């Protein structure tokens, strides 16, 4: 660690004893957001079983603060597209996403939501939920284990906390 950074941290420590923290408002808000996602329980197929099991005590999603699965999109800021998105359901999914208040994120859980999965050539299935909803994190698996979902949500946490890094990986600038 360089000397300058260490000096900054020491100053911050000294300020902390006086109960003062210095940060930008966006960083502070993001810090709050990433520690309490309110996912919308949008389970479409068998991935929803894994999503429900993630919230249960064995995997204990609540230790990260993400356990409040909301049945209403108006009280949610994260949409977990868990399962096969059919073409009949697609307008409804978009409508639910539009009803969520900003800022909002979306996770594609499972192969079906990522790319259509085994149903990619079916007449009734949307080949990838990203053609309907802007997706932030893709979690492959059929279905992904609860650990994968937790890892995906922690990746989303990283993405929100470091917007510059996410932009760099996606767009190179």
């Amino acid at each position: 660690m360089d000397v300058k950074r260490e000096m900054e941290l020491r100053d911050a420590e000294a300020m902390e004893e006086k109960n003062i923290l210095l940060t930008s408002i966006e960083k502070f808000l993001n810090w709050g957001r990433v520690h309490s996602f309110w996912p919308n329980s949008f389970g479409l197929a068998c991935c929803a079983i894994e999503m429900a099991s993630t919230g249960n005590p064995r995997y204990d999603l609540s230790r990260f603060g993400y356990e409040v699965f909301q049945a209403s999109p108006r009280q949610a800021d994260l949409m977990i597209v868990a399962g096969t998105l059919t073409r009949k359901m697609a307008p409804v999914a978009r409508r639910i996403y539009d009803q969520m208040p900003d800022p909002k994120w979306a996770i594609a859980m499972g192969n079906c939501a990522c790319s259509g999965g085994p149903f990619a050539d079916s007449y009734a299935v949307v080949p990838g939920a990203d053609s309907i909803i802007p997706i932030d994190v893709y979690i492959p698996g059929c279905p992904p284990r609860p650990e994968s979902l937790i890892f995906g949500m922690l990746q989303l946490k990283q993405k929100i906390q470091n917007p510059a890094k996410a932009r760099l990986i996606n767009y190179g600038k």
Partner: protein
Amino acid sequence: MVSDILRVRVSELAARFNGEVEENLGELELTVDGRYILEALTDAKNFADVPCDFLHDLCGMDLGDYLEVVYQLSSLRGPQRLRIIARVERDNPAINSVTQIWKGSDFLEREAFDMFGLQFRGHPNLKRIYMWDDFEGYPMRKDYVIESHEQRAVMRVRKEGE
């Protein structure tokens, strides 16, 4: 195991409607023309001693030259099982609805209509059940061509009250 008494009843029925009987996967299979399906099923429901009075399943089939409607019959009062197959023309796939015999065939016939385009005459509410109302074609037919990846990725417009 097919009981002898059921075999006799089915062959009587086949003689009346000019059908064929064969044994397939341990069950009797009666193939009749689609025109006689209502009478044939009414008789099968009222077989003496071995009534096949429970409609287990109903589905369509596409055999290329013609379509088939398959009725899987069983009973809550015995081990008897019977499969009745009705042949319908491909150009004019019309057949009488069996909703007047079994109320529960309502959704099954709607599914067969949705997937194969079978027109059930006398059905109270014959419309698509799985696919949306604007969907064109009957996806389970052999000659159905699936839309391209790009077409399927476009979000369709939802109708109000759908």
